[in-house]
């Protein structure tokens, strides 16, 4: 009896969470401008989404920004984690502490402070995309760092020593021994960086070029406008992203299951 109530509660909560997304998805395939009114089937929203210039630019821009900033964040964060791991206490403490600042800070404050430093104090041009790119690296590199550090701690240190004893140069030992062992942390850090960049509104709104939009800034502007065509095209965008997320989750789960069984269920023991 108690178990049934528990299950019902979970189902109810999932329904509440997914109802808005699913209802929007259904209406994205109609020619309706409002939820509630019944209309005919139409693919117009999807046609608009993929053909209208400003929508396409905004999607391509968001994805490019996410990829470039995440790549930079992953390189910087990973190097930082390896460096800090082998550093003396003082340097290690500095990196650890400074790394924590963007993590606990509110994104509004992070975005505003980068804007004040780069654009106001240094007079850097927003239109150069440099403040935006730096802002997104500040947002995500600390999380790459945080996902690599535990892997370094779990690493078998004797393997590195063995590689050195067998004649590998330090850089070779790093590439062939250390990097492969911390690879899962680097990959999950990169994935995390991508999701943080895609979800960001605040950093972008304080550092972006005037005419450039990410999905977030575009959606917020669109809700202030009154263009029904844009509004319903965004329903289609929401549906496309929802499907991509489901696909990504399924792929990751299948891949995760594979590595788990290969390693003899190491993950389950943890």
């Amino acid at each position, binding site marked *: 009896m108690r178990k049934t109530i528990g299950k019902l509660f979970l189902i109810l909560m999932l329904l509440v969470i997914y109802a808005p997304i699913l209802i929007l998805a259904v209406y994205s395939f109609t020619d309706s401008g409002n939820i509630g009114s019944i209309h005919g089937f139409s693919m117009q929203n999807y046609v608009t989404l993929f053909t209208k210039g400003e929508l396409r630019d905004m999607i391509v821009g968001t994805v490019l920004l996410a990829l470039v900033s995440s790549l930079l964040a992953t390189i910087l964060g990973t190097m930082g984690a390896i460096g800090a791991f082998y550093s003396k206490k003082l340097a290690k403490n500095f990196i650890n502490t400074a790394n924590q600042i963007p993590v606990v800070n509110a994104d509004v404050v992070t975005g*505003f*402070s980068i804007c004040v430093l780069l654009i106001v104090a240094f007079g850097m041009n927003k239109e150069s995309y440099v403040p935006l790119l730096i802002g997104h690296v500040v947002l995500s590199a600390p999380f790459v760092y*945080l996902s690599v550090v535990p892997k370094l701690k779990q690493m078998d240190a004797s393997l590195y020593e063995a590689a050195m004893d067998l004649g590998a140069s330090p850089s070779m030992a790093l590439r062939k021994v250390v990097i492969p062992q911390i690879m899962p942390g680097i990959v999950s850090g990169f994935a995390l960086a991508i999701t943080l960049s895609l979800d960001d509104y605040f950093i972008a709104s304080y550092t972006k070029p005037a005419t450039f939009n990410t999905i977030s800034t575009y959606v917020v502007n669109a809700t202030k406008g009154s263009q029904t065509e844009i509004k319903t095209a965004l329903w289609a965008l929401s549906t496309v992203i929802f499907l991509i997320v489901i696909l990504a989750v399924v792929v990751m789960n299948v891949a995760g299951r594979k590595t788990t069984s290969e390693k003899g269920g190491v993950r389950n023991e943890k």
Partner: protein
Amino acid sequence: MRSSRFAKSGLGIPYALFLLLFVVAPLFVLLYYAFTNGQGQFTVQNLAAFFTSPNTIGTLAYSFALAVVTTCVCVLLAYPIAYILARSNMRHKSVILVAFVMPMWINFTLRITALKEILTVLEGNLALHPFLNSVIGMTYDFLPFMILPMYTTLMKLDTSLIEAAGDLGANPVQTFLKVTLPLSVPGIISGITMVFLPSMTNYVVLDMLYNSTYIMGSLIGSYFASYDWHNGSMIALILLLIILIFTLFTNKYSDEDEGRGGALI
């Protein structure tokens, strides 16, 4: 051996410089702008303006109220979800957990758009219930961040302690109140840290749901829009101070590895 050790620690230099330039330096620049005026002269005017204006104090109070209510609603909804999920012997536990967490990978402005359309159908004019809608919107946005750390803590909980409580004569309610709940405090605190601060600052949720009342984040947004860097920096500094106090307070109780990062990974 010694020389190779040196080379590896050198890898950290670019990131250390990056943090110094773009994380630490901006904070000092904020401090400078907060305590100077347009002519670059030292002043406490911005600080005084914040604490003497009924508008800004009202904003601070409203942010706190919104954050407290949102956080409580999130705790009350997330704890049962995490508890039922962690304690059950369902076969597809992890799949259900992913289902609860998955929405956070969809851009939050699009999720709030979806919520807004539904609330409009249910309520008619959204502007009539601004506080309620903001709580609903933020709960909708932040709930996964509350569920994850709670679930992790409850999964780690040593079940033999619960059995022991039962063997020693405690009834299920007593066991829950005296054993399970106290042991899940770190998870609850981690969840609170991830929900409370965003609810004080994420003004986009309010904007999109037609709540025109300001929260702390909106103040920064409006000073940014009017190029008032000095007052904007002061608000940012005050927020930083709140965050610092909050972090020091919660660090004592939370699990080390379950901050925003821990739960996201």
